């Protein structure tokens, strides 16, 4: 959903043309999801579907409160519920709002072979430009959080845009706007980190010794962060990876091998050209021609 201006694009998939550099000082933005304040009401899910005009099918109950059961092309955010038995016999019901983390170093963008199908804006939002999407699904492989989903209807990949259209005109994302307990906050990344640390201090005072802000550095930090009661065990929050990283193949392809591959490709072309100059075009002799015609 291209709603910020092209001037805001700082990274573009499968493109070697330099991105515009005219704009300076665009503040990095972030959404902070305070799991300790979240009551799992799913208002954010509904707000997301309504703002983005996404209509999911009425599904089934599969023995849990998570509905729809998974992210999809029409479900860009989802509450995931985890029951955790505490060592003292008590129970915790950890409820995490799942969706795109908007990585500073986005694996999806790196993996994407379609020019301009994934962009990163100066404010940190990673957006899918759906008209350019070729439906290869590489972004899914490239995502360390297993977020993008392919649509069966149009074979394009979809995910949370952080409401880039709202943000572009100075509004907060729809989920932030609707959250009744202010468990989702939005602002500059610096402000969110500062507020997050304040909440962490409070949680530690209330007995959560391992509280912390989830802003994984393996992907360069994220523009969607969590305040976790147990930052030492992110995996307790239904599959939140402890140390997310861009898949090694994607890293290899885009990081190390791509220039070499490009060089190799260039060398082959050069070789072919030299062959033409030195030996002329390969000619097919008459016998072969005749043979083919038999």
């Amino acid at each position, binding site marked *: 959903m291209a709603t910020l201006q092209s001037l805001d694009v700082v990274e573009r998939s499968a493109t070697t043309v330099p991105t515009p550099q005219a704009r300076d000082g665009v503040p990095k933005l972030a959404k902070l999801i305070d799991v*300790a304040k979240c009551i799992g*009401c799913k208002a954010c899910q509904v707000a997301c579907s309504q703002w983005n005009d996404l209509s999911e099918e009425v599904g*089934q*109950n599969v023995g849990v409160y998570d*509905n*729809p059961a998974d992210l999809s092309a029409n479900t860009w955010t989802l509450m995931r519920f985890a029951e955790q038995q505490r060592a003292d016999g008590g129970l*915790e019901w950890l409820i995490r709002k799942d969706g795109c983390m908007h990585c500073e170093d986005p694996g999806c963008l790196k993996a994407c072979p379609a020019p301009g199908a994934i962009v990163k804006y100066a404010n940190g939002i990673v957006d899918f430009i759906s008209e350019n999407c070729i439906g290869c699904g590489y972004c899914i492989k490239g995502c360390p959080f297993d977020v993008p989903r392919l649509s069966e209807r149009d074979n394009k990949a979809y995910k949370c845009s952080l409401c880039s259209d709202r943000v572009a005109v100075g509004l907060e994302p729809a989920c932030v706007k609707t959250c*009744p*307990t202010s*468990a989702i906050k939005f602002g500059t990344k610096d402000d969110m980190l500062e507020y997050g640390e304040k909440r962490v201090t409070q949680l530690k005072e209330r007995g959560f010794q391992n509280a912390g802000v989830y802003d994984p550095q393996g992907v360069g930090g994220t523009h969607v962060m969590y305040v976790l009661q147990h930052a030492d065990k992110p995996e307790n929050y239904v599959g939140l990876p402890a140390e997310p990283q861009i898949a090694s193949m994607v890293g290899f392809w885009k990081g190390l091998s791509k220039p070499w591959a490009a060089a190799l490709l260039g060398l082959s072309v050069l070789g072919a050209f030299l062959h033409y100059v030195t030996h002329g075009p390969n000619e097919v002799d008459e016998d072969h021609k005749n043979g083919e015609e038999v």
Partner: protein
Amino acid sequence: MTNHWVDIKNADVVLVMGGNAAECHPCGFKWVTEAIEHRNAKLVVVDPRFTRSAAVADYYAPIRVGTDIAFLGGVINYMLTNDKIHHEYVRNFTNATYLVREDFAFDDGIFSGYDADKRSYDRSTWNYQFGSDGYVMVDETMTDPRCVYQLLKGHFSRYTPEVVSGITGTPKEQFLKVAEMIASTATADRVMTILYALGWTQHSTGSQNIRTMAMIQLLLGNIGRAGGGVNALRGHANVQGITDMNLLTASLPGYMRLANDAEQDFQGFLDKRSPKPLRPGQISYWKNFPKFWNSLMKAWYGSVATPENSFCYEWMPKLDKGYDVLHMFERMYQGQMNGFFCQGFNPLAAVSNAKKVGLGLAKLKYLVVIDPLATETSEFWRNAGPYNNVDPKSIQTEVFRLPSSCFAEETGSFTNSGRVANWHLAAGAPPGEAKTDSDIMAGLHMALRRLYEKEGGVLAEAVTSVYWPYGDPTKPSPEELAKEFSGYVVRDVTDAADPTKVLLKGGQQVSGFGQLRDDGSTACGNWLYAGHWSPEGNLMARRDVSDPSGLGYYPNWGVAWPANRRILYNRASADTNGKPWDSSRTGILWNGSRWTGPDVPDMAPTAAPENGVGPFIMQPEGVGRLFALSGMADGPFPEHYEPFESPLAANPLHPDNPAARNSPAARVFKGDMEQFGKADEFPYAATTYRLTEHHHFWTKHSHANAVVQPEQFIEIGEDLAQEKGIANGDMVKVRSNRGEVTAKAVVTKRMRKLTVEGKPVHHVGIPIHWGFTGVARNGYLANALTPFVGDASAQTPEFKAFLVDLERV
């Protein structure tokens, strides 16, 4: 709510019990998160299930369904034995010092005055001792064995932690932890709020559940204070409004109790509702009842209502028996009703024992359903397979469906749980032929009126004389209706001392109930709302967000009843000298000559503290009642009784008295007693409840809601699932003695086995939202399972505690 939504942020301890604020009131719950973040408040949740409220709580304790009085009675005992009460408050602001009649008694679970045949009490012994001056006798030392304090102490001394744990299944140390957190607010500098809802009301002991909590809050000195109170969270944006206006069958707008058959004499009727003070110098504000009543009659009958005809008292219905919802459907089931108007109500889904309700509806000649949606009730005759297995051919009831607008398509007022009325504008026009409820009612009235005018009939003039001054008689505007319930001056009111001096000009709006008169010179459709549309205009439409005190009163945001008072009983926020208990949370204070402060004083403005006018001005004593003289049908003190369907064969407090197993004063209709299931056949304790994703039975018609919670399910704990061989996501059949539900099983750690009287008790949780209309997947009506018995005082059905069996299918 005695307090209001925003005020929750002022609490030090937030108790959520008998409700599930985070799931059922997520928007209001923001004030709990504010209290936690900004006041370091502690959130305590007591519930049979580990709910989404518990998920963000500091402390959670499980409890068996239907045992809240045992738990709370245990808290009272803990507070009294550990001296954790607010002494100055209790001595001065409650009836702890009052002496009770010598013949009041409590014997093995039964209070004095019980008539077993009628299942009701003669409450005459539940009274004070009176001195020769006509006032109640008191003992300031609270040592007299007949004083309320000593009786209270004796009554609850049986509720030891061991007994409480045995009944409730709450592990003893967890009970004690909660008791300790509650009791920590007995000091003047700490306050607790309690948020409850249908988890307390929907029991055969519902009113007493709430009353026990009110007693705790009185003992802690938390009533009337910012961050305190007893707070009912209402289920819909305007449920408070409809209750204030006329929801209850035994009262008229503003909680004015309707006359009963014996009250044919108008003056006697008024006198009984305007009690004289029971202690010297008290206000006894209900003494103004005749002003409110006569003004109501003027609003309804205009110039026809005069002092000479007792303001049309003759035309007012006099109750011969109950007309509550259970009574209504009992009568329908008995074939004693011809027609039924069903407005904004889906009884087939919402009333207990759906089968009985359906059979009742089938005996009607006609049914009129006024609703924006195609409800189950409007299609009770339709065979929906297992979800509504009826034979349409055998049902002759004629059903009329009158499509109404929904709230967003109407202009008018909303009154929220905190009694704050807000004016709102229609966001769009209702679709198709849908009309607003007021247009439908006005159309019906005009049609009936014409028929009565033409054909006459029994008491025709009670209908043909109704004052109907609206510009378009078939379409009273919201503004016209609001001005009517807010009240106006009928004719000039002059000063008694100087008749030439006009105090109130005829035709103007009144500015408050203080201006209402009993002589017919004022009219007011609801005294509590008097002045909401004042001479200054529509106060409900005010949108001023200034909050000078920072305590969240927002005095010019909308308007609260009564008199824009945001916290009821706020006189009790200050000590006997009028100094706030906690100056950081001032409600009102005495400045030497009058009461002032951020809130509107709940006290005569110039009543000096030394005069000892009590803070509870609606009571003839002026103090809060730890011992209830009236109002409660089942006892002046709360007592634990088992739900009518309980896993226990006897009440552990009264093992040898079968009459005290269940509430002795709860009404049971003939035939329903036999329908109560027994634990040998139905071994599991069940409860019904709501989920965040849905609102009652409406939102299953909304696609977005259906997506986030699509299909009916029940919840069971892991140990019960293992015992019954049920895996997560299996289909299970849940049966009670009245019906069954087949649904998906959610197997969860959040429901756990409790040990009750030494034996294991499992719970089965049953969300209510599904049915056979709407866009969510069809499901069974949860109320196929629930029993047809109500609270002894309020008759609210016992949806929250019953017995089931279940098996995998």
